[in-house]
């Protein structure tokens, strides 16, 4: 997919975020959990590029590590929510009848509550004894997934229902195409087209939700580096050392804004835009040269 003529600079935080998440181990200068009581709450220096926190841990390494934590969790949640949502939504839309009614009811109930509230409630449930085999990290991913799929199901169903009414579906049926063929070949591409665009904008909201859960102490447990966690840790020192809050806050804001812009760029990509500027000038120059060549040929003939 191309990104049209949107300035790449705007998207650089999202791209940087993904790259940093992937190459985090190479970029970290310190162990994220390593405490240094000789260097608490320091400002930026040659050894600690962004300073240290209240336990003397390297802020740079923790920001980088936090990016990786968020990225991995986000990818898992988004992928799982997308699959669950598309499957449930498509089944509802394609089968119709009682099945559709039942599935829509579930989707509506899920959508009636804010995703974050559902995720919080699920985290509460998972903290029970029956779930001790799961680490907090995976509990968070599971809770977010279960709270996140409903929107994708709703969109998938809407697309399936509207595409099913198109004449080409009827034509495919007349040709004797099976349900599987019609769905995979004719309907799924439309569903994915919409859902993926939505997901690219949703990624930012998800990063924020992950940070929120950690901020509230329900997500990633210390000492795993996480931006929400870092915000909590920095809160106590906000007056004396505001950089402890500002740095993870800025990282979070940049990623959320950037993913929103990415989603918008994908959505606008479907709208054809007239070329302008230097490309248009070049095309016009090419055309003018052709005109001139023709004029010369015809004058000589």
């Amino acid at each position, binding site marked *: 997919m191309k990104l049209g003529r949107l300035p790449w600079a705007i998207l650089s935080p999202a791209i940087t975020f993904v790259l940093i998440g992937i190459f985090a181990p190479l970029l970290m200068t310190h162990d994220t959990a390593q405490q240094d009581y000789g260097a608490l709450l320091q400002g930026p220096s040659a050894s600690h590029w962004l300073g240290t926190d209240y336990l003397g841990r390297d802020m740079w390494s923790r920001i980088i590590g936090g990016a990786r934590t968020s990225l991995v969790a986000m990818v898992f949640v988004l992928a799982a929510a997308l699959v669950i949502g598309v499957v449930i939504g498509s089944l509802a839309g394609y089968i119709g009848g009682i099945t559709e009614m039942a599935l829509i009811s579930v989707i509506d109930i899920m959508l009636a509550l804010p995703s974050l509230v559902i995720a919080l409630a699920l985290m509460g449930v998972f903290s029970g004894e029956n779930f001790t085999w799961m680490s907090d990290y995976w509990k968070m991913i599971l809770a977010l997934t279960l709270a996140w799929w409903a929107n994708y199901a709703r969109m998938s169903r809407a697309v399936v229902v509207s595409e099913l009414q198109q004449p080409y579906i009827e034509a495919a049926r007349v040709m004797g195409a099976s349900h599987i063929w019609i769905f995979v070949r004719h309907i799924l591409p439309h569903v994915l087209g919409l859902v993926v665009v939505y997901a690219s904008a949703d990624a930012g909201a998800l990063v924020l939700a992950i940070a929120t859960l950690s901020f509230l102490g329900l997500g990633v447990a210390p000492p795993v580096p996480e931006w929400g966690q870092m915000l909590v840790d920095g809160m106590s020192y906000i007056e004396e050392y505001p950089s402890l809050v500002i740095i993870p806050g800025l990282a979070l804001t940049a990623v959320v804004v950037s993913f929103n812009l990415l989603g918008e760029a994908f959505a606008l990509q479907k709208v*054809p835009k007239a*070329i302008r500027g230097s490309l248009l000038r070049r095309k016009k120059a090419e055309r003018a040269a052709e005109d001139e060549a023709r004029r010369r040929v015809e004058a000589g*003939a």
Partner: protein
Amino acid sequence: MTTPVYAVENLIIDLYTPTVSVRAVDGASFEIHPGETLAIVGESGSGKTVMTLGPLGLLPEGVAIDMRGTARADGRDLVAMSQSELSAMRGGEFGVIFQDPMSALNPMLKIGPQLAEQARRHAGLSAADARKEAVSLLARTGIPDPADRYDRYPHELSGGMLQRAMIALALAAKPRVLIADEPTTALDATVQAQILALIRQIQKEDGIAVVLITHDIGAVSVLADRVIVLYAGQIAEEGSAIDVLTRPVHPYTKGLLASVPDFRSEISSGTREIPGLPPNQTKVEPGCRFAERCSIAQPSCLARRPTLLPVGDGSVLHRAACPVVLNAQGVAHQ
């Protein structure tokens, strides 16, 4: 001769997309006078619509448009005008009937108010007068029980009725030129005849000029006074309808007419197609665009773009852009 209500001269329209540059109209000139019906015929993609609607600023968005030449109406040059100036000019000077009435009328609004809005905007009528005007327009276009139809939504009307409503909409601002862009393509045969008859009747009554964009030769013979044959953005032949349809000169016009089935001939010779495909108009090349498909093409055809010259059959209006035929007929030029 009267002054033309719409005169296009040496119009060149280039369309640019990121991947291709298309010379949609390549130096076309035509004019239309009050009370006259001009038919523009040609294949799909020959530039009929772009040539006629382009200067009015009615080309689709999403492509960069470069327009040169002049298109004069009401003493002003449309090519040099801004979108807002064009918008003010359109309704009053030009009315347009589109191919698909279903998508040209807003499905969420009743038909009558859509007409009344036009009447209010361009004629400055009061709400009550605009309603009366809209009902009378519906009546004029042959819609039965117009007072009732005023409050109907587009989906409640048949295709033929909708096309009548579309014509009423085009007439609401009392244009001097009515442009009908394939007005009958989406309709069935009996309704086609009615719509053509309606257009002709309106033209007689109002004395407005009609530009008929079509690839339906039947419609041309019913309606048109004059015909322009367009090929790959260039005018191949023009003249009175009777001249062009019965005594075509340009090989392309002949081919075009031969490809129309004639159900009246007793021994059907079938239709003949023109070999090959229209050229892609992405390059500007010297010579006749039709040469590669032409049975009488000569080497010289590829070197020089043919200009429109009088055919010399007694009608000054009948002109063709084919030196080969004209020379063979012994028409002296230069």
